[in-house]
């Protein structure tokens, strides 16, 4: 453990934070431009060429905004809540591998900050800490609407965390390891999205709920729900919540790319190390586009339906998918027949189809009762 070792760690952590912060700024630009295209508008195009300086203008505006603290707020907690929201969204990225490794000054430098043998569980634990910021922000504002909003969002996050954890389990089962590097390397022949498409889909839906994105974006519902936990926040404190949301979007797309879309793997990545981050960036970029697309096309889901969808559909379906995956792997191993392994995607899709059928029938029945 010499000092260069520590220097390497500090530098890598610093670069990662920098990438995420810049990524956050330009993700807002990307989202606004892409949304505008889908809605037949132009979007921000005034500041700089093609509006490229818009995020900087936004940041300057937020710095100069007046920051209000409600008179009866619980000051310390009110101040702490945005920090508690932002920090997990940064440190969760520590275990994501962005590439293989390269040689610099005779040292092998790996393209990830930490390689821990329980990487996937680390993701779960940090995601569960993120709930605190929202609960505390809602409570410390001393405003009943903010508190109800905080309750709503945190209940949503805790509920969807179960489905999220179970979809992690499918990837762990397929890779036979909880280490992120092993999970990526296990996908060198087939991406896990091919073997377990339903697991990836559940992950996708659950993460949309985890980061409070459309169609599960209750905190954005100003008109009908008086926004959410951040109703009393303004200026930079509000910007921190905003930042956490967008950083979580980036990180969660990176996790999805790592667990189900082959991570940094791609053609020639074992020859040229710099292709790893490029592939990773491309995958994250495409997945982010899907997130924006969902926001542009789907109306917000009602809160009680959101909860019943999470508990009555996603969790049972995720359990079934985990069972199907585990059974398929075990049968292929015991009977030495790869046919069972390749039955996993088909049986999973059938299970998902049954779930969709059941939702459809339930909704039809409700419509019939109302009529």
């Amino acid at each position, binding site marked *: 453990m010499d000092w260069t070792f520590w220097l390497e760690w500090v530098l890598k952590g610093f670069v990662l934070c920098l990438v995420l912060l810049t990524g956050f700024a330009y993700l807002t630009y990307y989202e606004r431009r892409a949304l505008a295209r889908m809605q037949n508008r132009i979007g921000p195009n005034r500041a700089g060429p093609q509006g490229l300086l818009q995020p900087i203008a936004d940041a300057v505006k937020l710095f100069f905004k007046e920051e209000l603290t409600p008179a009866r707020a619980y000051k310390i907690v009110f101040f702490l809540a945005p920090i508690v929201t932002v920090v997990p969204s940064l440190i969760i990225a520590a275990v994501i591998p962005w590439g293989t490794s390269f040689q610099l000054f005779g040292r092998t430098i790996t393209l990830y900050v930490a390689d821990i043998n*329980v990487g996937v569980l680390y993701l779960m634990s940090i995601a569960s800490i993120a709930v605190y910021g929202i609960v505390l922000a809602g409570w410390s504002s001393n405003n009943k609407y903010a508190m109800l909003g905080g309750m709503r969002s945190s209940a949503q996050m*805790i509920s969807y*965390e179960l489905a999220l954890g179970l979809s992690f389990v499918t990837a762990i089962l397929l890779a036979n390891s909880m280490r992120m590097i092993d999970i990526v390397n296990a996908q060198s022949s087939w991406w896990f999205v091919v073997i377990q498409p339903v697991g990836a889909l559940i992950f996708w839906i659950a993460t949309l709920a985890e980061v409070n994105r459309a169609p599960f974006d209750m905190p954005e519902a100003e008109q009908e729900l008086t926004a959410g936990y951040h109703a009393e926040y303004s200026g930079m404190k509000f910007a921190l919540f905003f930042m956490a949301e967008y950083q979580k979007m980036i990180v969660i797309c990176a996790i999805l790319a790592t667990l189900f879309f082959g991570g940094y793997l791609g053609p020639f990545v074992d020859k040229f190390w710099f292709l790893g981050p490029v592939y990773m960036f491309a995958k994250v970029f495409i997945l982010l586009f899907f997130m924006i697309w969902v926001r542009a096309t789907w109306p917000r889901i009602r809160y009680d339906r959101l909860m019943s969808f999470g508990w009555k559909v996603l969790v049972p379906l995720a359990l079934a998918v985990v069972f199907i995956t585990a059974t398929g792997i075990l049968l292929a191993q015991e009977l030495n027949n790869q046919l069972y392994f390749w039955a996993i995607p088909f049986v999973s899709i059938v299970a998902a189809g049954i779930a969709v059928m059941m939702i459809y029938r339930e909704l039809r029945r409700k419509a019939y009762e109302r009529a």
Partner: protein
Amino acid sequence: MTAEQIVFLIVALVTLGSAFMVVTTRNLIHAALWLVATLFGVAVVYALLNAGFLAVVQVVVYIGAIAILFIFAVMLTRKDARDSGPQTHKNWWVGALLAVASYLGLSALVLGWSGSSKAAAGLPSGFDAVGQLGEALTSPNAYVLPFEVASVLLLAALVGAVYVAFNRK
């Protein structure tokens, strides 16, 4: 003193200090937050002992689920989070006596054990701690019975909670 010992001492002090704050602070939400700090300290102790899996599970289960439920319960049931009643029970000395007795007993046990003064041997490289733990929990020669009994107990508690909360028309 090695660096590891210094880190351990700092973590232990922080953990004990926040545990002390849990029982002395008047504001219930602050008490819950100090409890989170205490649980986090315990997780760091696990990490120092090379038990990464336990450390992460400690964070997921205790901080991510149990402490958040405490905060929910306080927020939903109390209008004022400040507690004004007396902070000690009239039988506090019995509790103190029990605590001192169990501390002395544990110390005597640990000091009497020959391994307590030896440094821990490093794990062999490629040691699959998580796999070993999983096998220990599901192998009939190891701990499958206590593990299953604990899960049945938790299931019973879950069913009981639903039964208590169920609104019979």
